[in-house]
């Protein structure tokens, strides 16, 4: 009957597995950014996606050195026909941009123009300066309709803000390159599909091959690559290798161990079936419950092998007792499963979504393991299994003897260990360091390339602000206040630079704080009205009269309706503006309508601003101005998660203690809790000594130690120190050591930290668990 049940469930599982594979429900991804915690504020989160999601598909290739230009051209010609190469250039139509703004003449003022309105002489100086420029398409396109040149200067200033890259003879050239170094950049967009795990590896390889060809032809040139594609490719190759290598290695070690202990093919078959059933159950659950499975989830999921095999060991060891009774074993396994599942459910409290995938994989996998050990394993092993290994028996007796000796000195040992742990924490307080880098197993070259490109494209000391408002006008006004604060800083920088210049008698290029945002293209209505008043005032004070006399032009300002977001949205300048404004529709009825229920978020970028300056610039806005620093935000969220996990650990511990108190009494509950706390404390302290500052993943490991430790404690509590139980627990511990031990060879810091702490925790609990158990005999 059991065998039939086992076979039926196996068939159903196989059928489902084939189903998810054929229907393509099993999708994988390795985008490292998708692991990151999400912001709690929905509108900010949506705005963040709007502003930055497009960047995920960008690939950046830069060329420097003496043959920078030639290597750029060579890359371009080699890539031109490749399916992944897709360059979308935004045609710069200055003429059309000027024509769009001309109807709003009289409402738009650039900073320089505004300053020039202070006197007739100053204005004439400004206007003459514009006319002496060799070529100025803005002046050329607008002087007939707007002889004041205000529209020309406004549009020119707006375009001038976006100057990190320049087009030179059809090549994008960096403006922030090192002195004397020419640097050209190619930016192209790949399809979403190219970010899938396998495709990413292929595409990244092909791009690197082209780079290699270019470098071979021009050895003097430096070619650098970056983009999410390369992170995905590197992390997925790494994860694939680690999964197959670690999984394979630990599986092999366990099978060797099983054969060594049981000397039976049926035992090997039982173990293999249990693991296979567990993995199939876990995989089906992942494929059915998640849109795509992150490859990092599977790396963590390798741990399933270690836990599921425990169940098999308990059944197998019990089965070769002279009078096997599986009832207690099954009860222990069920209680152990519930506690482990609870432990893994706690993982889902962490902000990283992939931990839900890990938890799902493990819990479903353990169900599979449990079904297998309750049905198939007893059916195939009961009649044939016979353990005749005198060497093992001898070692087992020796181990049980040690356990008994330890148990006899339980109090002394527990006091000594507790004292040692306490003193070590006093002398060496644990420090934490939560960094996004823990999630990234990318190569140092790629990380350094990325930092280099970031500096090239965005400049130094770049700070990004999210400006929130219930109306677009509110957002624009806030931007303008910040702009005026930065302008005040610019004046200070300008004055100090002139002073230094005077003292040293040298011309020093100024590094002036800069602001770029949508208010460059669309001033607030309030500002437009003020501009109009300023122009009218200047006109009534004859500021333009000298200019008019000199040129014969007539400067007039029309009273037009103000420029609006609606007008910008459908204009030629929309591609420059819309990427920097997000409209959140709260009521869900309007489509891009500016109504009272909408929320607006704009992205304002400041450069050459120190942290201290940023604080003074952004103060006084309440929640309307948010400093956006992804790395810092993530670190903060990780810190908060780590701290909250500690509280959850305490809660889980209390719950477990209550269950044990209820089931086995107060003494057992106290002993078990102490063993758990000591094991976790030892694991953390040793991890700190080996690894240095700990992170969220060491704390996550605590949850798993708790789940595994509960298993050991429950089995000891139920079955005592009889030889089959001690053997099963020892085999479990060894198999877990294989599984978690190999994780310390992972190149991903998060996986390493997790593996290290769990491994140390297992060793600790293996020693401490029998000390804390109130023996059945004692009961």
């Amino acid at each position, binding site marked *: 009957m059991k065998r039939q049940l086992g076979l039926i469930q196996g068939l159903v599982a196989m059928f489902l597995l084939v189903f998810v594979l054929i229907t393509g429900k099993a999708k994988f991804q390795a985008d490292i950014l998708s692991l990151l915690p999400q912001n709690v504020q929905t509108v900010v989160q949506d705005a963040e996606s709007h502003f930055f999601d497009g960047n995920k598909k960008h690939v950046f290739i830069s060329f420097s050195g003496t043959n920078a230009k030639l290597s750029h051209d060579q890359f371009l010609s080699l890539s031109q026909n490749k399916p992944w190469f897709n360059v979308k250039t935004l*045609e*710069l*139509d200055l*003429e059309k941009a000027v024509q769009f703004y001309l109807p709003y003449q009289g409402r738009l003022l650039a900073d320089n123009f505004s300053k020039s309105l202070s006197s007739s002489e100053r204005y*004439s*100086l*400004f*206007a*003459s*300066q514009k*006319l*002496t*420029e*060799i*070529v*100025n*398409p*803005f*002046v*050329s*396109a607008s*002087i*007939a309709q707007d*002889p004041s040149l205000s529209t020309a200067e406004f549009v*020119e*200033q707006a*375009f*001038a803000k*976006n*100057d990190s*890259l*320049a*087009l*030179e*003879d*059809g090549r994008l*050239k*960096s*403006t922030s*390159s090192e*002195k*004397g*170094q*020419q640097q050209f950049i190619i930016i192209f967009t790949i399809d979403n599909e190219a970010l899938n795990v396998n495709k990413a590896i292929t595409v990244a390889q092909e791009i690197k091959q082209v780079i290699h060809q270019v470098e071979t032809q021009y050895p003097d040139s430096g070619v650098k690559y970056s983009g999410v594609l390369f992170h995905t490719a590197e992390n997925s190759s790494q994860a694939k290798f680690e999964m197959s290598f670690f999984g394979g290695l630990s599986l092999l070690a366990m099978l060797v161990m099983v054969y060594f202990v049981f000397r039976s093919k049926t035992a090997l078959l039982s173990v293999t079936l249990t693991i296979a059933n567990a993995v199939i159950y876990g995989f089906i659950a992942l494929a059915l419950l998640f849109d795509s499975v992150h490859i990092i989830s599977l790396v963590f999921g390798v741990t399933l092998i270690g836990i599921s095999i425990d169940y098999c060991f308990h059944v197998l060891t019990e089965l070769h007792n002279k009078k096997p009774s599986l009832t207690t074993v099954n009860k222990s396994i069920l209680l152990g499963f519930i506690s482990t599942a609870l432990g893994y459910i706690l993982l889902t409290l962490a902000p990283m979504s992939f931990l839900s995938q890990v938890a799902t994989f493990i819990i479903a996998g353990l169900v599979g393991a449990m079904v297998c050990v309750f049905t198939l394993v007893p059916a195939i092993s009961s009649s044939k299994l016979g353990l005749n290994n005198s060497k093992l028996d001898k070692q087992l007796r020796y181990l049980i003897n040690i356990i008994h000796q330890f148990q006899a000195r339980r109090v002394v040992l527990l006091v000594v260990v507790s004292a040692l742990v306490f003193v070590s924490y006093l002398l060496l307080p644990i420090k934490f360091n939560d960094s996004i880098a823990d999630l990234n197993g990318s190569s140092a070259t790629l990380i350094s390339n990325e930092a280099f490109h970031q500096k090239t494209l965005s400049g130094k000391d770049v700070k990004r602000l999210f400006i929130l408002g219930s109306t677009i006008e509110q957002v624009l006004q806030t931007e303008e206040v910040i702009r005026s604060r930065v302008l005040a800083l610019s004046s200070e920088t*300008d004055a100090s*630079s*002139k002073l230094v*210049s005077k003292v040293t008698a040298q*011309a*020093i*290029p*100024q590094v*002036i704080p800069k602001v770029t945002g949508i208010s460059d293209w669309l001033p607030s209505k309030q500002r437009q009205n003020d501009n109009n008043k300023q122009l009218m005032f200047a006109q009534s004070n004859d500021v333009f009269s*000298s*200019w008019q*006399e*000199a*040129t*014969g*032009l007539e400067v007039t300002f029309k009273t037009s309706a103000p420029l609006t977001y609606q007008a910008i949205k459908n204009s030629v300048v929309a591609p420059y503006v819309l990427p920097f404004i997000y409209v959140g529709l709260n009521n869900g009825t309007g489509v891009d309508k500016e109504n009272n229920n909408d929320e607006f978020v704009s992205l304002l970028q400041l450069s050459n601003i120190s942290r201290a300056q940023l604080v003074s610039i952004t103060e006084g806005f309440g929640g309307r101005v948010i400093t956006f620093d992804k790395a810092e935000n993530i670190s903060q969220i990780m810190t908060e998660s780590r701290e909250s996990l500690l509280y959850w650990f305490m809660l889980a511990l209390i719950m477990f203690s209550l269950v044990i108190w209820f089931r086995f009494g107060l003494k057992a509950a106290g002993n078990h809790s102490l063993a758990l706390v000591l094991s976790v404390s030892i694991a953390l302290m040793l991890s700190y000594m080996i690894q240095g500052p700990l992170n969220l993943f060491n704390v996550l490991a605590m949850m798993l130690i708790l789940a595994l430790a509960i298993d050991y404690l429950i089995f000891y509590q139920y079955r005592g120190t009889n030889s089959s139980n001690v053997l099963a627990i020892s085999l479990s511990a060894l198999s877990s050591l294989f599984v978690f031990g190999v994780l310390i060879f992972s190149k991903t810091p998060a996986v390493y930290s997790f593996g290290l702490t769990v491994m140390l925790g297992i060793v600790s609990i293996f020693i401490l668990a029998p000390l804390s158990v109130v023996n059945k005999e004692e009961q």
Partner: protein
Amino acid sequence: MKALFSFVCCVFSLFLINSAIAENTVIATTSADKVSLSVEQVEKRLQIEQGELYNQHGDFIQRKYFKVLKKPFLSSGNFEISNNRFIWKTSKPVESAIIFKSGELYFKDNSGSKKAPAQASTIAQLLQHLIAGNFTALTDSFAFYDDNNTANCVTLKPKTSSMTAFIEQIILCGDNQVDEFVLFDKNMNRTEISISYNKEL
């Protein structure tokens, strides 16, 4: 980008504008009736050998013609040119300078000296190559045509979108050296620059 067009030259006296009278004699031509020229043909036509015009200094006069202005806008100054340095200094109507050295561009005016964005270097390099007669360096961006109006002139038509955004065509004239060039923008306003050379540096 602002700096791209800022060959800064400020006015202290607007009377100069009125005094700058020039005849509107140069006419932009269409490429239909032109014959395409190679770099060698351009050099032969202007009797300029590549590289020989580097290390020069001299003076310039710039006349800016807008359709809406009755008279051209006049400015003048001097320049220095060598392989890795180019200085374009406007002295009238007001002092300002553009300095391009070791691949970096700086502006200097009454508000101080500042690093200019790379787009500005497009125009600075264009000027440098035009004055130096370095037509090979211009082949990426321009096609050369026979100018039917004058025997010692060639027409340059931009090939790249980054250049056509500013310039419709350039007519360059010279005999053993570049004497004058006229830049036409998309609105067919034009800038005439006449050059006189002093002895070599």
